[in-house]
């Protein structure tokens, strides 16, 4: 290939890759590629999503946790600050699963607007501080969980 043709080749290549990368970066289609949905999104699901396995992430609402009396499992509510959804869970939750903390649950959004789950994953934030400081009421500069939920 002559050097002139090589130049044309390089320009075409750069244009193609640049265009693809720009589309990747500027296009908004990345929004749909998520590991988990937020409760507001779940509430807006149409019937196409019923009975499909999805993951939902949010904060466990304080005081909403209620264990079943007769079997393993519980109900609780999950919120993203705007919308709140009820979750029923069967099984043993992880140790770090607590009220007021983040969690990702896997399961189905039913037509009755309840989330049925059998797997809870505790999501922790990127904040780390000693327990004494926390007891003394020291807060890190930003709000604990929400920033890692919505970057």
């Amino acid at each position, binding site marked *: 290939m002559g050097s002139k043709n*090589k130049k044309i080749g390089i320009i075409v290549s750069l244009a*193609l890759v640049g*265009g*693809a990368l720009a589309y990747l970066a500027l296009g908004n289609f990345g929004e749909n590629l998520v590991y988990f949905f937020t409760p507001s999104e779940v509430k807006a699901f149409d019937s196409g999503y019923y009975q499909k396995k999805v993951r939902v992430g949010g904060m466990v609402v304080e005081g909403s946790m209620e264990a079943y009396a007769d079997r393993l499992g519980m109900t609780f509510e999950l919120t993203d600050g705007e919308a709140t959804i009820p979750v029923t869970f069967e099984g043993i939750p992880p140790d770090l699963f607590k009220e007021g903390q983040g969690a990702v649950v896997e399961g189905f959004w039913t037509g009755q607007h309840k989330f049925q789950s059998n797997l809870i994953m505790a999501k922790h934030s990127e904040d780390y501080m000693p327990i004494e400081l926390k007891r003394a009421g020291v807060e890190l500069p930003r709000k604990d969980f929400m920033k890692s939920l919505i970057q």
Partner: protein
Amino acid sequence: MNFFNVIRWIVWKDLVTELRSRETISSMVFFALIVILIFSFSFSMDQQAAREVIAGIIWVAFAFTGIIGLGKSFSAELQNDCIEALQMVPESKGAIYLGKVAANFLFIFVVEILLFPMFVIFFNLDVVEEISLLLLIFFLATLGLSAVGTLFSALTVQIRAREVMLPILLLPMVVPVMIAAVEATKGALNGDPLPMYSQWLELLAIFDVIFTVVSFWMFEFVMDN
């Protein structure tokens, strides 16, 4: 321009030898048939359960079949040391790359078209409405597979243990193609609305563009010292 002539002649040569020997396509088809049969023996499924996993099965079968075709593409050049003649072509090696990608794409795509009815029969799929969309998914994913696969075929054919190294190097690289193809196929077979999985088609197209360009330039270093 000689660049495009070389592309044309490479495609012509691969098609003519394939039409006369029928080695690649027949071995691919029979291999894939065996894979389909084994899958359908090992999962005896109702239609609902099949929907969940069928997209994955289809693409596992297509990827393995594709690897057979891609491996043959350059191992055929080893007869009478023809690969050395390709290395001595007084033209950018990218022309050979594009010709080979076109031929490989054609072979794999034809095999996929031949095999898809088998999946429909063995797994009781209902695909009439989505057929054109499925063809588009096959087209984009096969292009991505052959773009990377042609490069690795040329690379592994010139080293020891070539049959083992082709899948070992190729499969990790095409993970994005496999993820996107499976997700899009799943969406199409479920009859989901297109916007729910159109981003996977876009991702396939982006992968195709980027990898064809990068492999085009890297092919120079694989075929030439």
